[in-house]
C-alpha cells in the first residue's frame, strides 16, 4: 500500500471490501480519489467477486491512463496552436448576430481577441435576458419587463419644441406611448406628473403641466441656456436602465417543447438586470465577462469565457476545436481569482523570465528595465531556453539518458 496513505484502510471503511479485493484495487496506478470511487462502486453493488473486482480496477486504470496528459506534454503550446490555426480562417470582421433580429454583435477574430485581451467593455455589449413565471409565457407581462430594462428618453415619449419668443421648452407627451410604457400606472395624468417631477429634479427648473403638455424654461431669458436645457432633457432616462438602448423580444422554443419569451438587449448592465422583477436571475447572461465576474464570481467568469470563446468559434464553423484548449485558456485567465488578459498587460507580462517577456512584445523596453533593475534570468522556462539555444525542459528535453561505459555485470558477450 502507498506509504502516504497508511491510515486509509478500505477494509474497515467498506463493508463489502475484503483483503483480496482491496489488494487488487490498491495494486492499480490510480490516485486515492479514484480508488475510493472504485470501492464505493463495489459497495453499491453489495460486493463483487474477485475476478469482477479485478475487471473493474483494470478498466478504470486503463481509462485513466488513456485520458491522462503525458508528463512533460506542452499543453499550453498545443492549445495556442489549436486555437491559432482556426483563427487564421476566421473573418476579420463580421456583424449581424445569426437569428436575432437586428442586434449587431462583434464576431469572429475581433471578438476572440476582445475575450482573451479581457477588455473592460466589449465592442457591442449585449444581454440575453430570460424571464420567469408568467412573464416568460404572456406577451403583455414580457413587455412590462422590456420597459423596465430599455432606457426611455424623452424623444420616445413625445415631441419637444422650443419657443424662442417665450423662452420656453415645450414637451408634448403622447398619451398612448405613456400608457404603453407604464402599463402598471393608474392613469396617464399620474405618469405625466411623474415625468414632470423627474424633469424638475434633473434640470433644476420649475415646470408647468397642463394634462400631457409640460412647459419650462431657463431662470434668466437666455438663448444659450434654453438650448442647453433641451440638450440635457434628451439625456434624462425616465425609465429603464441607462446602458440599454434597445431590447428585442423573441419567442423561443424550449427543450421540453414549450415556448417562452427571451429578451435580447443592446447594451448591458448585468447587475441591474438580474435584480428586476420578472427576470430569471438564474439563466440571464451577458457577453461582458467582467460584469459576470463582479456579479457572479470568478468561477462563473471562467464558464463565461469558455462559452463565449466556443460560441465565437462555432459561429464561424470552427467547432472542431477541442473544448479542452479553451478550458485551459479560461483556467489560466482566472487562476489568480480575478480575470487577467493573455498578453503583455496580463499573463505574458507577469512572467518571471526577462527573456520570455522581451520575446513577446516591446523587446527593448523590457531589456532596458531589466538591465536597470539588475534582473536575473534563471532560464527555467521554454522561451528563454530557445533564445539561448539550450534544450527546453519539456517532453524528451527534460529526460536525461545516460549510457554507461560499462555494464552492471552479467552482460552478454
Amino acid at each position, binding site marked *: 500500500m502507498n506509504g502516504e496513505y497508511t491510515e486509509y484502510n478500505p477494509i474497515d471503511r467498506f463493508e463489502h471490501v475484503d483483503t483480496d479485493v482491496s489488494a487488487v484495487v490498491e495494486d492499480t496506478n490510480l490516485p486515492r480519489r479514484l480508488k475510493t470511487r472504485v470501492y464505493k462502486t463495489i459497495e453499491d453493488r453489495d460486493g463483487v467477486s474477485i475476478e469482477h473486482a479485478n475487471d473493474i480496477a483494470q478498466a478504470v486504470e486503463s481509462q485513466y491512463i488513456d485520458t491522462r496528459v503525458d508528463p512533460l506534454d506542452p499543453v499550453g503550446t498545443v492549445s495556442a496552436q489549436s486555437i491559432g490555426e482556426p483563427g487564421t480562417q476566421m473573418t476579420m470582421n463580421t456583424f449581424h448576430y445569426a437569428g436575432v433580429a437586428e442586434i449587431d454583435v462583434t464576431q469572429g477574430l475581433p471578438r476572440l481577441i476582445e475575450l482573451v485581451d479581457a477588455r473592460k467593455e466589449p465592442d457591442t455589449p449585449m444581454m440575453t435576458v430570460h424571464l420567469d413565471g408568467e412573464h416568460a409565457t404572456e406577451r403583455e407581462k414580457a413587455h412590462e419587463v422590456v420597459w423596465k430594462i430599455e432606457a426611455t428618453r424623452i424623444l420616445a415619449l413625445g415631441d419637444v419644441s422650443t419657443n424662442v419668443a417665450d423662452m420656453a421648452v415645450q414637451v408634448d407627451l403622447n398619451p398612448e406611448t405613456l400608457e404603453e410604457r407604464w402599463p402598471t400606472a393608474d392613469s396617464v395624468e399620474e405618469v405625466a406628473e411623474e415625468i414632470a417631477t423627474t424633469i424638475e429634479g434633473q434640470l433644476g427648473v420649475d415646470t408647468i403641466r397642463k394634462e400631457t403638455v409640460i412647459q419650462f424654461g431657463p431662470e434668466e431669458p437666455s438663448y444659450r441656456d434654453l438650448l442647453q436645457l433641451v440638450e440635457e432633457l434628451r439625456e434624462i432616462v425616465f425609465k429603464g436602465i441607462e446602458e440599454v438602448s434597445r431590447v428585442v423580444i423573441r419567442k423561443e422554443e424550449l427543450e421540453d417543447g414549450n415556448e417562452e419569451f427571451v429578451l435580447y438587449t443592446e447594451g448591458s448592465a448585468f447587475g441591474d438586470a438580474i435584480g428586476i422583477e420578472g427576470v430569471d436571475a438564474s439563466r440571464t447572461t451577458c457577453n461582458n465577462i467582467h460584469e459576470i465576474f463582479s*456579479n457572479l464570481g470568478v468561477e462563473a467568469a471562467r464558464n463565461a469565457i469558455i462559452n463565449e470563446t466556443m460560441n465565437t468559434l462555432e459561429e464561424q464553423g470552427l467547432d472542431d476545436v477541442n473544448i479542452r484548449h479553451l478550458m485551459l485558456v479560461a483556467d489560466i485567465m482566472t487562476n489568480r481569482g480575478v480575470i487577467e488578459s493573455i498578453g503583455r498587460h496580463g499573463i505574458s507580462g507577469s512572467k518571471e523570465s526577462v527573456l520570455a517577456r522581451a520575446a513577446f512584445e516591446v523587446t527593448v523596453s523590457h531589456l532596458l528595465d531589466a538591465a536597470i533593475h539588475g534582473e536575473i534570468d534563471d532560464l527555467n522556462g521554454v522561451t528563454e531556453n530557445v533564445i539561448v539555444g539550450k534544450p527546453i525542459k519539456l517532453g524528451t528535453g527534460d529526460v536525461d539518458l545516460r549510457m554507461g561505459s560499462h555494464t552492471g555485470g552479467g552482460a552478454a558477450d
Partner: protein
Amino acid sequence: MVDVTQHELVPEHTILEDDELEDVLAEYDIKRTDLPKIKRADPALPNEAEVGDVIEVVRDSRTTDTAVVYRLVVE
C-alpha cells in the same frame, strides 16, 4: 438581493475541511499556496469563508460529469 449561487454559471462552492485538505494536497503533491485563488470578496463564496480557507468547487464539466477543483481564498 439576488442569490447568485442559483445562477447556472455558478458551480457549487463549499469550504473544505482540514483533513480533506490534507488528502488533496498529498494527492497532488503541492502546497496550499500552489492552488488557484479566489478573492474573499467573490460573490459566489459562502459567507463564512475566510482568507486562508480552501474552497471545493464542483463544476459541471464539459468533458466529464463533474470536475472537482480547489481554490484558496485570498485577501
